[in-house]
């Protein structure tokens, strides 16, 4: 983590908690990750793993309160976003980084035409006239391959199908050609055949504009299709970080291993699925030591007392950086 200047985005030791009626929920507990221009980082995790909260903290759209960033740094192009004033951050949102949400229908304003919503970006950030902004909107809709963009620019979100709406969301995120896109479960709400179209589009635009992409998902299939690097999150921490090919070949954390074994495969009809026993932890009462220890088949005494550091994983043939937060990553790696 020495040459941080080269990274487009660098999150360092981020901690986020939520104060609720019932207590303090520790949603993010020391997350470090970074993404370069042109790189796709997949953040994989189940609900409550802190993957979306981290993204919201980066975008600066975390609800505060009840949320609170207790410590950490978010460096974007070398600048710590957490030290900026709100109006300075607002300028970065949209132009510097943009976000795509899961639910395109509720992310679009139902009473404004899609043209108005797309054009708004240019009017606000670029000071364009309404007319020029409209022309730009049509151009964007063409770019995300919405047929008959010229006619459809005046239509309202409900007149578009789910896949088309997600394209509009992508168009909106790309409008100002940001250098970083955060996509939070962008295809989860879509049908399989449409999912493929949208992922393809996203990947293509990313290549064209050489953007960094943080893809937040729970779907191991989508990750395998598009990611360069994977960060697996559990209970607000990164438990494993690796190049995509390595992790599918041999996971170095029992949680990743369990996830990979528990999904049914299209190409084989297995017997019983491997199931990770138990439930994700209660974020108000995270187990001491390794948070995964109550569900881990390999847990020893040390796992119940010591939090495992995100250690560097090394083995022959590994060229990129790889890390695992398991006391027994060597044993896990061996199978």
């Amino acid at each position, binding site marked *: 983590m020495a040459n941080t200047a080269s990274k487009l985005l660098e999150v360092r030791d981020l901690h986020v908690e939520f104060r609720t009626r019932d207590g303090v929920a520790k949603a993010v507990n020391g997350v470090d990750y970074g993404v370069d221009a042109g790189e796709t980082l997949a953040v994989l995790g*189940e*609900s409550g793993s802190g993957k979306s909260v981290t993204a919201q903290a980066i975008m600066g759209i975390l609800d505060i309160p009840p949320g609170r960033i207790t410590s950490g740094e978010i460096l974007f192009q070398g600048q710590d976003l957490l030290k900026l004033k709100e109006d300075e951050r607002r300028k970065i949102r949209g132009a510097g980084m943009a976000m795509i949400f899961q639910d395109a229908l509720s992310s679009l304003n139902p009473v404004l035409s899609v043209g108005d919503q797309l054009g708004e970006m240019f009017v606000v950030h670029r000071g364009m006239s309404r007319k020029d902004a409209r022309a730009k909107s049509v151009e964007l809709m063409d770019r995300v391959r919405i047929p008959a963009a010229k006619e459809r620019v005046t239509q309202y979100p409900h007149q578009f*199908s*789910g*896949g*088309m709406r997600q394209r509009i969301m992508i168009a909106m995120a790309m409008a100002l050609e940001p250098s970083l896109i955060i996509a939070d479960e962008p295809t989860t709400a879509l*049908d*399989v*055949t*449409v*999912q*493929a*179209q949208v*992922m*393809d589009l996203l990947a293509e635009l990313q290549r064209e504009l050489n953007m960094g992409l943080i893809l937040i998902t*729970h*779907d*191991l*299939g*989508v*990750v*395998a*299709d598009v*990611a360069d690097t994977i960060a697996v999150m559990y209970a607000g921490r990164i438990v494993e970080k690796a190049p*995509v*090919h390595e992790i*599918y070949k041999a996971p170095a954390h029992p949680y990743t291993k*369990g*996830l*990979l074994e*528990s*999904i*049914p*495969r*299209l*190409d084989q*009809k*297995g017997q*019983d*699925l*491997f*199931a*990770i*026993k138990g*439930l*994700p932890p209660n974020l108000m009462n995270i187990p001491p030591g390794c948070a995964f220890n109550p569900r881990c088949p390999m847990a020893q005494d040390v796992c119940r007392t010591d939090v495992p550091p995100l250690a560097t994983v090394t083995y022959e043939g590994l060229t990129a950086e790889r890390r695992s937060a398991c006391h027994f990553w060597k044993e896990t790696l061996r199978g």
Partner: protein
Amino acid sequence: MAEPILEVRGLVKHYPLTQGILIKRQIGAVKAVDGVDFDLGTGETLGIVGESGCGKSTVAKMLVNLERPTAGVIRYKGEDITRLSGRALKAVRRNIQMVFQDPYTSLNPRMTVGDIIGEPYEIHPEVAPKGDRRRKVQDLLDVVGLNPEYINRYPHQFSGGQRQRIGIARGLALRPEIIVADEPVSALDVSVQAQVVNLLDKLQSEFELSYVFIAHDLSIVRHISDRVGVMYLGRIVETGTDAEIYEHPTHPYTQALLSAVPVPDPTAREHRERIILSGDVPSPANPPSGCRFRTRCWKAQERCALEVPELAVPAEFRGVEGPAAHDSACHFAEEKHVVP
């Protein structure tokens, strides 16, 4: 195949589209399900896959009599159950139960777990005498892998996976022969999905259940099903055993669907052929003529717009032994391997 416990023939459900407030005028119909046939064998799992809006959930609702079909019959052990009412309907309901998709809305938040699982006995008091019910509920909790002492808790005190187990226990209470599961795991986390799928597997052999398993996730359907039906716009387009459908698909829609599923294997990225369909599913209020898939199909010809392809073994495979010879509603059926 074993003796069918359920036979579905020509099942149709049209929802009328109306205009007007007091005096309603029909201006069209959403053809949610438009002629579906299948059999379910005793002890068998039939998987139904399709994308949203294909009518698979409407089929599920008709099977458990939550919707009345516009036309067609559903025969349970030879008897048509679509026109039943009153006592006869209630009796059939004991034998066909449903597991719902959303574990957050399918349990009444203001009832204890004991009341939720015990409700079937209150509705059908002949199944269990009053003094026996509490014990039966605790047995059921145990069967689905929950602590029987949780009987006085409320649904919100459980996680999604545990709630789905409660829903399954409720479905099992009356000892039905058939369980219709509509996307039973799609709302759950990956690591919990496997637990619930395994539970359904275990219960099937323990209670000799027949399942109709409805899902959009092709991998899970393959895992759990003996036979699979693929639905598109209110019709079944291809049906066969799991190996026939997944390894030897002959309908272009099935091929596109299978090829679009992301596979958790990054090495497949480079050499895998993907069929990316253009456009969206047409509106079920105004489906295309002839073959309904023709508007998105790369093989479509004039014939596809004129003739509705019937669901049968296609001509080119007739008389041929082998896995490719299964029912497929396509004029130009052709085998293609798409699963790596």
